[in-house]
């Protein structure tokens, strides 16, 4: 009986529970490559697929990290994912030529390298793209990740910057956002980044330097400087950045 190491990443129950009968027969294949499922005995996992381009018959319980990515979907992003599913998987499948699916049971978005995939590195890109969407960014903003190489997503928490409790934390978050999100948008516009404020977590999407600028601005805001001051600093810095390029 072969027991495989349990993959920490995978939260799924074993797809192909090893049955004595099978083992006896010695049909178990190790890797889940490709479409060609030779065995007839393979129990197809019934997975709920909303829309699948390709029906995958995975005999294997685990897929190697190299060829597959799984991205967990938090509950609050479930509906948006459903709404924007078309916009999400279209670029992945068409441009990156990957295979993607949403595992409703496990609530994962799974991306897999297919035979027509040209570049395996795209897998990571796609995973990042989906992850970014699941953080809270807009699809169009997250798409930038796919198109440009040098965009990153940085996440940190407020408590990393400064320990705040209760009201202070609330006020800090309010300071970050501004009235109707003005401050956040200002920073976004000046630094050419996208910011997502998720309670205590802050995610910034953009190029490295811009992220740094935005991060500095946000940190200053967290630490208590008034927005006007932050704007002033931002402006000067942004001008210099712009002049350089």
């Amino acid at each position, binding site marked *: 009986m072969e027991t495989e190491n349990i993959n920490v990443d995978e939260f799924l129950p074993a797809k192909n529970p090893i049955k004595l009968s099978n083992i006896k027969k010695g049909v178990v294949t190790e890797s889940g490559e490709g479409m060609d499922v030779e065995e007839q005995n393979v129990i197809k996992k019934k997975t709920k697929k909303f829309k699948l381009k390709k029906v995958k018959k995975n005999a294997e319980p685990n897929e190697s990290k190299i060829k597959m990515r799984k991205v967990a979907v938090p509950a609050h992003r479930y*509906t948006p994912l459903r709404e924007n599913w078309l916009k999400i998987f279209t670029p992945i499948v068409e441009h990156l030529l990957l295979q993607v699916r949403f595992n409703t049971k496990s609530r994962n978005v799974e991306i897999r390298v297919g035979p027509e995939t040209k570049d395996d590195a795209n897998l990571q890109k796609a995973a990042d793209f989906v992850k970014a969407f699941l953080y809270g960014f807009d699809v169009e903003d997250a798409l930038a990740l796919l198109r*440009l190489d040098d965009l990153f997503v940085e996440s940190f928490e407020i408590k990393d910057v400064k320990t705040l409790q209760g009201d202070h934390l609330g006020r800090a978050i309010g300071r970050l956002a501004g009235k109707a999100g*003005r401050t956040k948008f*200002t920073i976004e*516009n000046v630094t050419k980044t996208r910011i997502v404020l998720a309670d205590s977590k802050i995610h910034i999407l953009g190029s490295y330097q811009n992220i740094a600028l935005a991060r500095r601005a946000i940190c200053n805001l967290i630490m208590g400087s008034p927005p006007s*001051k932050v*704007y002033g600093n931002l*402006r000067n810095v942004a001008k210099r950045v712009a002049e350089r*390029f």
Partner: protein
Amino acid sequence: MANAKMQNMIDKFSTLTEKPVKYLTVQDDIKKDIKNLVKSLYDFTKSQEQDSKTKQSQALKKIIVNDFDEEQIWQQIEIQNSQCWDQLVWDVANSMSSKKDLTFPIQFPEDRAQPDEACSENLSDNENKQLEPHNVKKSKVKSKNKVNKQQLNTRTSVVDDQFFKLQDMEKFLVNEEKTEAKGKKSNDDDDEGSIDMFDEIESEASDNEGGKEMMYSDFFNDENGDENAESYDEESNEGDIDRSSKKKVRFAEPNSDESEIDDENTKTDEHKKPRFGQPDAEESESDDEDMVSQVNGEKHVEEKKSEFELRQQRLKERISKLEEKTLTEAPWQLKGEIDATKRPQNSLLEEVLDFDLTTRPPPTITEQTTVTLEGLIKQRVKDKAWDDVIRKEKPVDDQLLFKKPEVLDQSKSKLSLAQVYETEYLKQKQALSGEVEDEKEPESHTEIRTAMSKLFSKLDALCHYHYTPKAPQAEVKIISNTPAISMEEVAPIAVSDAALLAPEEVKKKRKGDLMSKEERTQTDKNRERRKKKKLQRKKGQVMKVTEHRNTKKGVESSEKSLKTSKAFFQQLNDEATSLIKSKTKKNVKK
């Protein structure tokens, strides 16, 4: 009868014109009298006219005075006058041509009656009648002359004079010789012998009527008077006809010049110039050259002067006149710059001054101008085309405006991040590539635009009522703040230090004295604090997006975004039900 009438009229006339001053004002009371006088005079003279004239004349036989105004009466008289005047001039010329006949009769006793007669007939105070008596007079004079000539058995010589007549002298001499011849036989001692020196000088007394009582008038018949050619026509005064028919001595008088001038004025060129004043060379030769003109009882006596003498006389007169002119003080008009104090009062009012006006004269306001002006005003009010002055603001020359203002957009960006980076990338690419090809205007367009702007600026300058010229705009010069060394190192000669930033532009100069933080007084500290606060406030003031020139506030969408599916479907449901309800209602109604 005629004379009496005449005399009447003359008397009337003299009474009416006693005080000519009265005629300066209108005299209504004697208007009628004057009219009647004029009428009577005219009619009388017309009646006295010779028949030959009446046939040709255009003038009326009797003047009409009733209900005619002065202009019309005068016209009638003028017709008559003009006719007679022509004839008169003609006759005078004729008579002048035959000068020899124009001698007044010498004062012989038998002739005295005749001149009186002639004079009496000259009693016309009417200008119309002068020709006739003159003619009469002339004829009489002619006859007299003939008589005289016959009597005198004339043979005039050059040396003949008022006193001396050659013929008489010869006669006398002849008689004396005769007597001498006789006397020689009778008396010896009378003539040739010794003259008794001690005898009383009685001879002179006996000869003359009263030796001691010799008067000027015995020798000279001259009475000073002007000789005027005009006065020859105006023989209005009867009492002055003491014309001695003797030849008259004429002294060099200042009047003679005037008379000469007058004569010349009245000459007619066709005939020999009848000179009443100055005798010609020809005239001087003849004895009976008496030009007698008489004005108010004055008589002239001519003396025969040689040409040279006359010329000299004239010259002297001229000289004296010129001397007078130059020596006397010039009138104030010719004295150059004259004050009001140096000329008589109000004398400038009578002067006709000539000067140039440098300023434009004020416009003459006529009815037409006012009408046009009012029309213009009304039209303007209707059109509401006022000429109000628009408040102008001086453009502030703020060089900071040249710096592109950094606009902080506080709203969610419309472009997604991908698009943002895309545009940026494209810009970079274009910048790298060099020329920006976007919207290059065709040359013709730019030419047209510049030409038009120039033309319009010129037109504005000409016709804009409140024109202000365009303020000079600052030129933008881009200076890169590179260190001087780097600029100098590179070879190009064209680059100069002026292209670099000045030290003040690198770091602004601090006003006032330099002082350390410890040296500051309270006021300094406050001043610094205030400055700092001001700067902070400025920094904090972020320009809203809508304040930027290029942006406008849009319309806010009032819809609430449907965040949950539940809400979405609920709304959908509600809409559908309402629609159904409305339709069912309609159906029911139908």
